């Protein structure tokens, strides 16, 4: 392993002061087992070969690097490239992670997987690998998200997964994660919990980043092959932070590459109106890790809001907290409205309908491009496609009178 100023390998489960394992003792044995199996799998050529095959044959990797010519002309500045994770099987980057964790599940001899999901993309990606490998699958999903992501609920069920509605708290992603953890407390002997982002207790943040790093590794190679150099700026949306971590990590040591993470600015800057954890939060502990959190002064998790179910989360992966504090990555926000505008613009200029989550990253690229020269390159991680959001967006556009 290379040693890096930005520590690819967390020390004892920590990225600087962030990370750790703040979970009940009941889960510690499973985390230790997972860590051991994960380390041995990475060192096992048969495992990495099988994972590569799955990436290719199941996910359809490598995903394309695409020059968004008309979008670039529209903005009149830096050249905008898109890393097309929306072209993956199941429609988002989430499949990269679930393939890796499914192979680990088989390696551990476990027969059942559980997952939490917000937008439903991680749930669909988990249901998919469960079908591929013959695993039993339960997906926890907030009842509010079940409403706004109906298509994905149907897809999961069609693939044989059981979707468990979660009615506690705000009935969204955070609450689904709580319920999945509670399930795991009682089922840990035979069940693997496939966490969908770079959040949760160690080794999940590092492991999920590793399984998502195909995004950044491919991008790096594709840029060198097609343009002959690395991009000047990487832009990715940040919910828990997995597509961003997968894009950033393989280029974190390329000092000339600037990186921007885009959080959900929601409908305003008041606590409860957004999900901008790194931008507006402070260090705390949530879902097993020390990281930036949106909390009230008493330590209770704050309410959050985003038009995008996949970004509607009051926590963030610990490595992002570390990247923020060290200044390696700059974090900013994009409002609900700006994300919708970006979704419409990308659809019209390129014929690509992005997921609402990814639209946040697109919006930041639109803002940045005119401020940079035409010789500069912005690479956006287009984390997923927008089919799942069609109904929600149609309603919003109708309300806006468009």
């Amino acid at each position, binding site marked *: 392993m290379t040693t890096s100023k930005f520590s690819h390998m967390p020390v004892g489960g920590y990225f600087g002061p962030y990370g750790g394992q*703040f979970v*009940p*003792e009941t889960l*510690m044995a499973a985390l230790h087992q997972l860590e051991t199996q994960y380390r041995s799998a990475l060192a096992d050529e048969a495992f990495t070969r099988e994972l590569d095959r799955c990436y290719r044959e199941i996910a359809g990797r490598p995903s394309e690097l695409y020059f968004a010519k008309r979008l670039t002309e529209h903005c009149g500045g830096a050249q905008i490239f898109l890393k097309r994770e929306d072209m993956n099987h199941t429609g988002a980057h989430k499949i990269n992670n679930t393939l890796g964790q499914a192979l680990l599940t088989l390696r551990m001899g476990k027969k059942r997987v559980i997952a939490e999901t917000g937008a439903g993309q991680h749930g669909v990606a988990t249901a998919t690998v469960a079908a591929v490998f013959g695993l039993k699958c339960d997906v926890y999903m907030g009842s509010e998200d079940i409403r706004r992501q109906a298509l994905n609920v149907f897809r999961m069920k069609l693939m044989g997964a059981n979707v468990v509605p979660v009615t506690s708290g705000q009935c969204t992603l955070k609450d689904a994660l709580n319920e999945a953890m509670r399930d795991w407390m009682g089922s*840990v002997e035979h069940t693997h919990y496939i966490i969908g982002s770079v959040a949760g207790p160690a080794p999940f943040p590092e492991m999920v980043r590793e399984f998502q790093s195909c995004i950044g590794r491919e991008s790096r190679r594709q840029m060198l092959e097609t343009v002959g150099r690395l991009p000047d700026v990487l832009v990715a949306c940040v919910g828990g932070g997995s597509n961003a971590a997968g894009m950033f990590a393989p280029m974190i040591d390329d000092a000339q590459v600037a990186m921007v993470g885009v959080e959900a600015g929601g409908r305003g800057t008041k606590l409860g109106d957004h999900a901008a954890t790194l931008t507006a939060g402070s260090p*705390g502990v949530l879902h097993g890790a020390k990281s930036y959190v949106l909390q009230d002064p008493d*330590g209770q*998790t704050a309410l959050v809001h985003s038009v995008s179910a996949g970004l509607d989360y009051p926590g963030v992966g610990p490595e992002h907290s570390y990247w923020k504090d060290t200044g390696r990555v700059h974090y900013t926000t994009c409002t609900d409205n700006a994300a919708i505008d970006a979704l419409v613009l990308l659809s019209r200029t390129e014929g690509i309908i992005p997921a609402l989550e990814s639209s946040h990253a697109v919006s930041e690229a639109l803002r940045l491009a005119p401020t940079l020269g035409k010789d500069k390159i912005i690479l956006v991680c287009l984390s997923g496609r927008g089919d799942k959001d069609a109904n929600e967006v149609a309603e919003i556009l109708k309300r806006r009178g468009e």
Partner: protein
Amino acid sequence: MSDVANNRISGIWSGGAKAKILAPFLTAGYPSLDATVALLRDFERRGVRLCEIGIPFSDPIADGPVIQASFTETLEKGLKLSQVFAAIRQYREQGGQLALACMISYSIVFRHGVKQFLADAKSAGFDGMIVPDLPLEEAKTFEPLASSAGLANIMLIAPTTPAERRVEIARHSRGFIYYMSIAGITGERDRLPEATISAVQELKRETATPVCVGFGISNAATVASICQVADGAIVGSAIVRRITEAKAKPLAEIVGHVGAFVGELLKGVE
């Protein structure tokens, strides 16, 4: 350290006393802080010696539906930690002598600042800390801080804990060891797994620290059978459910209803 050795929790078993205890769990502020204090007084009068006070948290992971619902309802009413501390202080000022363990998520402790939190908890009148999401690795720096604040850091052992690690946790636990009888969340069960008894027996051979068993205990018979091998039984959901049943009634009736159930449970340790 000396502070912890002398505090109310350690006092229960001091000098090799073979006390068997029933430790009821209460959600702080459920349905009101007045009720919490009144229940503590009632329990004390009935002969309870140690009580666990659960601080409501928005995102509990180890708690079952009954306790979670009590947390949610209490937080919706706007309960603040400072109010819990004030109520415990009031209980102490009026002569309350129960040993009190504060069960709380590390999220809240960390947010307040660990040292500040421990100092405030101690001065309010708590004797110990149970932090279910702070396993051994993370507790190693926490335990000495708790001890020097005069609070016993009570650690948890699960059925999934491997033997070697169990011994290590026992070594770091202060006051008593909390053995979780079930790999899962809190909630009432009719009977406990057979394995619990033998696991506790094994643990008792490995440590001199008292062992109390919790998760899933809901009646006097189970309390009695657990206490044949353990030093105490912790009852949570079954008590909180009784509070839920009576919560709309006047305070005296809530106390009567819940107190009667605790009186019933106490027969298990007589």
